[in-house]
């Protein structure tokens, strides 16, 4: 009878070995399976010599060991139900073996009845195998699908990684381009300034030359007066000379300041904040912007109004950065009034106003023009990079977006816009004092 138990053990090992045929775990377990099969096949005839009872107990032990071993190993987890299905058979094996040893007569008397539990347990194992095989097949399908999914995921991940790297490269290119654009925007605004700067330098230089020349003449005249003995007149001339020299110094410094301002404007921002007289800065760039446009287009003219608040505190700013913002706002304002002037010259008085005021520990700079105003539908876009209403080639669309960065990010300030179509536009910069 013990043949059933050996058969069950052999089938168990064989079946599990079979399912491992295509598994990556096969190399690991293959020798073990073969050894087990051989051992079971050999154990049967040898133990049979000792009699059916002992043989059954040995077979039960083998089965028990196999189940115990299988349940312990992670690799055989899917076979758990199948392995556990052997418990009844193992129980039957021990009971049958022991009974046969202790009561051999009893067993041989009821030989045919003792077959029933053995076969039942054996069939039970087979039944469980069929059920678990079905389950295994499903698991197999799932694991195949899983593998397919894994492959797809890996493919997509590779694609995404590629795309990410491409995007990274593009981003770096864009950042480099942005830097170049900022630099060229600076140079563009410098180009617009050049004529204004030339005019602004020419004027003081003329005064330096003229006052020097006239002073030389005055010295001759003074000598004449001294020779004549007219001391009073000579003293008057001397006073004039002194005034002239101070005017020469004044205009020399004026030109100096303009050149320095120009150099500062073109230089990469030092980002060094220094106490700055806002009125002076605004006035300087107001004139530069105006004369720059005048030089480019002689038909252009505008009323310049300044309302500079007195007792304005000096403000800690990067002067060339804020200067650039002001220049940009002035240029925009002049452009707006010029456009309107072109449309209807009758009775229209182009006016650009700059006002400063200190209030609530802040300094406000307002640039207002009575040009065509900003249409409602573009108001939200004017601070966006590359947005421009100017014809292609005339505006970079970076002026206001750079201004926004300088004021808001660089100086913790604000830029506010008020505008009414066909009436006015007003930009107000506020910077904490």
């Amino acid at each position, binding site marked *: 009878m013990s043949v059933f138990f050996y058969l069950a053990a052999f089938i168990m090992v064989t079946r599990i070995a079979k399912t491992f045929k295509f598994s990556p775990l096969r190399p690991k377990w293959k020798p073990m399976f073969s050894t087990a099969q051989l051992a079971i096949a050999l154990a049967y005839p040898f133990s049979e010599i000792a009699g059916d009872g002992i043989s059954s107990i040995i077979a039960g032990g083998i089965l028990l060991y196999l189940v115990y071993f299988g349940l312990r190993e992670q690799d055989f987890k899917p076979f758990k139900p199948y392995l556990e299905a052997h418990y009844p058979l193992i129980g039957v094996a021990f009971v049958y073996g022991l009974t046969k040893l202790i009561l051999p007569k009893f067993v041989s008397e009821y030989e045919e009845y003792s077959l029933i539990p053995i076969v039942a347990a054996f069939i039970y194992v087979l039944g469980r195998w069929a059920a678990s095989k079905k389950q295994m097949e499903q698991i197999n399908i799932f694991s195949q699908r899983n593998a397919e999914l894994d492959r797809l995921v890996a493919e997509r991940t590779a694609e995404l990684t590629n795309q990410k790297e491409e995007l990274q490269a593009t981003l770096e290119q864009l950042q480099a381009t942005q830097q170049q654009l900022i630099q060229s925007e600076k140079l563009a605004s410098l180009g617009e300034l050049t004529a204004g700067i030339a005019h602004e330098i020419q004027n003081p230089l*003329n005064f330096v*030359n003229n006052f020097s020349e006239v002073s030389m*003449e005055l010295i001759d005249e003074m000598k004449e007066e001294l020779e004549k003995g007219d001391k009073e007149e000579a003293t008057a001339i001397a006073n*004039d000379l002194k005034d002239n020299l101070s005017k020469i110094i004044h205009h020399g410094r004026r030109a100096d300041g303009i050149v320095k301002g120009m150099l500062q404007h073109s230089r990469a921002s030092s980002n060094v904040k220094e106490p700055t007289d806002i009125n002076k800065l605004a006035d300087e760039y107001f004139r530069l912007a105006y004369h720059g446009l005048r030089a480019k287009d002689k038909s252009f*003219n505008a009323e310049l109004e300044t309302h500079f608040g007195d007792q304005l505190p000096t403000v800690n700013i990067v002067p060339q950065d804020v200067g650039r913002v002001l220049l940009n706002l002035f240029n925009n304002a002049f452009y707006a009034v010029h456009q309107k002037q072109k449309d209807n010259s009758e009775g229209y008085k182009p006016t650009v106003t700059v006002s400063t005021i200190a209030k609530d520990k802040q300094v406000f700079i307002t640039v207002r023009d009575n040009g065509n105003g900003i249409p409602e539908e573009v108001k939200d876009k004017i601070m966006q990079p590359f947005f421009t209403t100017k014809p292609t080639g005339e505006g970079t669309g970076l002026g206001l977006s750079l201004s926004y960065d300088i004021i808001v990010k660089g100086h913790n300030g604000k830029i506010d816009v008020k505008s009414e179509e066909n009436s006015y536009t007003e930009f107000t910069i506020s910077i904490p004092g």
Partner: protein
Amino acid sequence: MKILVVDDEADVQPLFLQRFRKEIKNHEFEFDFALSGEEALDYMKEKHSEIVLILSDINMPGMSGLELLLRIRHDYEVPPPVVMMITAYGDDENRNQAMSSGANDFLTKPLDFNLLKEKLKELEH
């Protein structure tokens, strides 16, 4: 001879007074000044009969020299004062525009005072 100088730069005034020191002393010339086109027009309203010559800068904030010229030519026909335009931009376009707007002469900055003096002396006769 009374001359009105129109320029937004205030330092032009002592410069003219000193340059023409002798002539002023000898009462050959008399100078008055205006800092803007508007101011010049106000001045003209009162004293246009006295003014013989107007020297005006073109590039001024507000009313430009050319506008002033047109207004003078429009408002004062008899006797027409002599108007000389002065500008830092001495290009042909500027000159033509000034001359066609009715300027008698066109001078470029920096002003050559000796040349100006000669021109003024010619006008005297």
